[in-house]
């Protein structure tokens, strides 16, 4: 993994008062993103607008495509053309992208998608918050694959995690997602953008060997294949069909059972390196509240109240939601009374917690179908109930 410093051209060093959507664009530009293709959709449009405004001044391209199908397709083309690429969307657009998210996974293409989540299903609540695409991001395209998904809790983290998403997508040659939501996306707060030399980026894993020996899908020691870009003279082929290391289609069970496990294993076997959590007082906790994104901030209020009431509560904030911190949850499940999982949906990640807890501790959901963040009181009540 070759580390490089950010190009100062894209880095708007200083303190700013930005909303999460704009911070995403700044994070991407700082990470070296020079190609954006997107389609307007509330509540993510501000990111596209910021790109349209900023990218012509840093030597990149912005294009508003005809729909989200085209946006993600253009990203795949541009990534293979050598660019760092990003798009942003929300629920309905995210659904449209699913087909080519699968292609991006199959072609092991580094790209970043931000989903500023709103209430669903269907058109749902265009202008109001939700965290209802958390399972879709992992399972939404057909077939078996893995992705990386991060969840920022503030405009500052939209900036920080967008850079992280770019780095992870390059390291693992995988689509990476910033799963934010309307609340964070539209919320203005202070965002500090560091000087370029303090922003560490990962360079794409370029192949440098002989031209006729390049194999686009041959895993290296770290499981990740090398990449080349179109125009470098390798005359390579990649396909969304089940393929061998050469990228040639091979339509049989044998090839499928090499091709697909690789897509899953390269993420799962590196999960410890990828996962970032924020734990607080989990060591002696009886109850652990697991949350992510804006919900974790709201949760803190409830947890403070519960602690005042004498309940031993710990918290885990999932900065990385996928891959899931399976090991850690398993470990903690043995020691605690219950997990409490508030999220702005009718129950999604809570079932992953339940799976990992493996019957050792119940996972109690605190559902909220979107439109607003939780009332901290509801989370407090769930903690209190769980501690009985």
């Amino acid at each position, binding site marked *: 993994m070759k580390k490089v410093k950010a190009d100062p051209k894209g880095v708007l060093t200083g303190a700013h008062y930005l909303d999460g959507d704009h911070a995403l664009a700044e994070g991407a530009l700082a990470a070296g993103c020079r*190609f954006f*293709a997107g389609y307007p959709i509330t509540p993510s449009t501000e990111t596209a607008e910021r790109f349209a405004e900023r990218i*012509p*001044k*840093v*030597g*990149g*391209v912005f*294009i508003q*495509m*005809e*729909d989200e*199908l*085209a*946006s993600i*397709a*253009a*990203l*795949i*083309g*541009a*990534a*293979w*053309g*050598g*660019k760092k*690429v990003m798009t942003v969307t929300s629920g309905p657009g995210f659904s449209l992208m699913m*087909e*080519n998210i*699968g*292609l991006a996974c199959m*072609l092991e293409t580094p790209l970043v998608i931000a989903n500023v989540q709103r209430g669903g299903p269907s058109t749902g609540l265009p202008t109001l918050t939700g965290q209802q695409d958390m399972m879709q991001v992992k399972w939404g395209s057909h077939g078996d694959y893995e992705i990386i998904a991060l969840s920022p809790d503030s405009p500052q983290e939209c900036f920080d995690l967008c850079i992280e998403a770019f780095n992870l997508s390059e390291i693992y040659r995988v689509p990476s997602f910033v799963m934010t939501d309307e609340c964070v996306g539209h919320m203005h707060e202070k965002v500090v953008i560091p000087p370029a030399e303090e922003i560490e980026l990962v360079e794409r894993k370029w192949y440098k060997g002989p031209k006729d020996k390049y194999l686009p899908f041959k895993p290296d020691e770290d499981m990740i294949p090398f990449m080349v*870009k*179109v*125009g*470098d*003279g*390798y*005359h*390579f*082929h*990649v*396909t*969304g*069909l089940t393929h061998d290391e050469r990228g*040639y*289609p091979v339509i049989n069970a044998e090839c499928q059972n090499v091709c697909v496990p690789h897509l899953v294993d390269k993420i799962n076997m590196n999960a410890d390196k990828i996962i970032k959590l924020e734990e607080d007082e989990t060591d002696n906790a009886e109850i652990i509240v697991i949350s992510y994104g804006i919900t974790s901030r709201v949760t803190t209020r409830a947890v403070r109240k519960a602690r005042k009431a004498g309940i031993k509560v710990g918290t885990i904030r999932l900065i990385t939601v996928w891959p899931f911190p399976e090991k850690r949850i398993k470990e903690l499940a043995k020691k605690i009374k219950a997990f409490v999982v508030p999220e702005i949906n009718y129950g999604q990640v809570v079932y992953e917690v339940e799976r990992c807890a493996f019957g050792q501790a119940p996972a109690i959901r605190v559902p909220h179908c979107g439109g607003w963040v939780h009332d901290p009181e509801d989370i407090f009540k769930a903690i209190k109930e769980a501690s009985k």
Partner: protein
Amino acid sequence: MKEEDRREGKNPIENLLRMDRIPHIWCPGCGIGVVVTSFAEALRKSEIDLDKTAIISGIGCTGRVAGYVKLDSIHTTHGRAVPVATGLKLANPELKVVVFSGDGDIAGIGGNHFIHAARRNMDLVIICVNNFNYAMTGGQVAATTPISANASTAPFGNFEYPFNLPYLAEASGATYVARWTALHLRRVTKSVQEALGRRGFSFIEVITPCVTLYARRNRLGDGLNLLKYYYEKSEIQHGADTKTLDISYQGKLIVGKFVDKDKPTFLDCMNEHLGKVLGDKYEPYGGNHD
């Protein structure tokens, strides 16, 4: 042709194909291979930098072309070859990007992408093999199936109006539009050469028999006869008004080069416009900076 190739009796276009993937999947008598040959011949003749030429396909019988041509090649999803090509072209404007796909892919499921890329005069070469049906899936009715022609999902004959692709392309903004049948080998080659040599959205439709499904179901004959059938039904009318190019069942096929005009491409417009409005703040965009 290199001397050693001549000694081995190699076809001159073999260097342009992934011979390790031959035999291909197409049916005997299928016209797609013929179009690929004409295309490869154009690549050879045009002397463009093959390292800087890429081919993108979608899904379907013609969608497999990207897998057989020895260029940087991406076999994408159904209908999405054009937007993938758009992204690739914009990432590196030095590249010549060719989309090689079928009528179902380009005009059916990918129709929206097609018209928008044409509208932008995106600098792409689109080669559309039109065989009047969805062949890979077994001969279903398509957006190009002539009225009254039979298809597996139009078992009593098609009653929907089909697209006139050259008209659609021109109306959407394409700056080069041609149509041939597969057996117009040299004409196809020449059109591809012209398209590779120009800038802007170029569209070449090639009418091609689907021996196994469309032709059999419609009792149009087989193999070489069928290639000849289309060829013989055709009439060259260069510069014909694209409005007049509807294809009727077993009717006359008007072919030729209909449109060839200069117009600034997407990137020309972007650079010119942003340069004018933003002045020094604009960094002219011209490709990879590495």
